[in-house]
């Protein structure tokens, strides 16, 4: 097994009492001393600091970078204004999702953030297909500050951060060098993701943690927070076998890229994806509320009745939601069974337990729009 990489904040995690686990080729903090439940609730009540430096930061530069990226991603990139960011997916020829990503227009270039486990493949994919320069950013860490106090905390260090709206991006000069800030995240909370030079990253993280409202948060709580927010985890809820329509990610397909739009199609798998936009896909990602207290974890088979022999779907993420105080899951079911309120059964340890299709997110997001 290849040696695990460490982020620039590794020593800080260990000093903070993190339990480190292998994740996407990195040693990452799964939790700190407080534990997953308290870390989750702290993020929703105050502010949580996450090290997401394992994710891939890539700059795309060139006159036609936006147009080029549209050949791989069904999002509207040409229509993305400077200082704004958008969610998108890389698709394959069958319409499946190769990875999901954030795309920011930072004036003279595009800045994309991709998943850690996919970054090598994504970079190779972009280099092979994009007629623009593809520059991995190796000298920057990436932190996320999430929660209702995030604005006040970051605003105390970088006043202009407080004036940003959800999905705004900007560069701010600070005591920690130039920060590339976006007002976004992966928790359903208001907050920021901040790219900082490696040499300044520990000092910046310590300055944020010095604020009594901020606690360090590990991958465990990151997962329960994003699940309550109804956000997909690549590799679990979306993968090369799921299309954006099946995954209920139609919002990531720009109007201009849809049938009848100014730049309709032109991305891998467009034929299938645009057809599914018109007619619907045979299956759909939905929220699931198990009855009782037992979590229905990823891999749980879903059945239409207590005795049916053939499963109709599968749970792709499932856990206890500390803020909603009950088990929650996401999974795929036939579109005919995707209406909220539909009663199904999930098989847990050999027993069929009732589960109900539910609206996503489980907890409303609090973005500063």
């Amino acid at each position: 097994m290849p040696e695990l990489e460490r982020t620039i904040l590794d020593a800080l995690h260990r000093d903070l009492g993190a339990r480190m686990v292998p994740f996407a080729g990195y040693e990452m903090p799964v939790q700190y001393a407080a534990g997953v439940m308290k870390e989750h609730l702290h993020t929703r009540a105050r502010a949580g600091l996450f090290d997401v430096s394992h994710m891939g930061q890539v700059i795309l530069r060139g006159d036609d970078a936006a147009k080029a990226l549209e050949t791989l991603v069904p999002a509207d990139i040409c229509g993305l204004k400077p200082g704004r960011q958008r969610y998108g997916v890389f698709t394959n020829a069958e319409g499946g999702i190769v990875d999901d990503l954030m795309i920011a227009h930072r004036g003279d270039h595009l800045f994309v953030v991709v998943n850690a486990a996919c970054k090598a493949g994504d970079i190779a994919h972009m280099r092979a297909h994009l007629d623009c320069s593809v520059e991995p950013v190796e000298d920057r860490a990436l932190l996320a500050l999430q929660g209702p106090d995030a604005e006040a905390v970051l605003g105390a260090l970088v006043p202009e951060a407080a004036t940003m709206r959800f999905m705004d991006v900007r560069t701010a000069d600070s005591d920690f060098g130039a920060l590339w800030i976006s007002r976004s995240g992966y928790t359903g909370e208001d907050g920021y993701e901040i790219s900082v030079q490696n040499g300044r990253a520990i000092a910046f993280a310590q300055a944020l943690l010095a604020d009594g409202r901020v606690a360090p948060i590990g991958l465990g709580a990151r997962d329960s927070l994003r699940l309550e927010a109804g956000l997909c985890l690549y590799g679990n809820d979306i993968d090369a076998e799921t299309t954006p329509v099946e995954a209920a990610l139609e919002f990531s397909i720009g109007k201009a890229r849809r049938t009848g739009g100014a730049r309709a199609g032109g991305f891998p798998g467009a034929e299938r994806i645009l057809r599914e936009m018109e007619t619907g896909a045979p299956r759909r990602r939905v929220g699931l509320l198990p009855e009782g207290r037992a979590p229905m974890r990823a891999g749980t088979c879903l059945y239409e009745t207590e005795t049916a022999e053939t499963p109709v779907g599968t749970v792709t993420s499932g856990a206890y939601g500390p803020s909603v105080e009950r088990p929650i899951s996401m999974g795929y079911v036939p579109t005919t069974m995707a209406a909220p309120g539909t009663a199904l059964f999930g098989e847990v340890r050999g027993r069929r337990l009732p589960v109900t299709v539910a609206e996503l997110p489980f907890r409303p997001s609090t973005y500063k729009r």
Partner: protein
Amino acid sequence: MKFTEDHEWLRAEGDVFVVGVTEYAAEQLGDVVFVELPEEGVTVKKDDEIVVIESVKVASDIKAPVDGTIVAVNDKLGDAPALVNEDPLGEGWFFKMRIDDPAAIEGFMDEAAYREMIA
């Protein structure tokens, strides 16, 4: 009190034994959100998986430490699974069992030996 290598404890209470998990195990499990207990009256064999614990992170099984009969289970855990974290050696117990052969627990560790194992 006796301890097993699986981080369970057994405490004599009259002619039965109360069984739970240690503080160390509760810490390793993380916040417990669901506990599935055996039925009272069932007979169990050593190493049968008779309790399921779901934490925020993962599902784990607790095995019967010895052969015997379950005579009581801790119903409080249904509504308050966090008792396993808050008071693993007290209120967070799982079940009481009557042991078939009292000699079966003689091989288990005392507290000093258990502390040494987890040190």
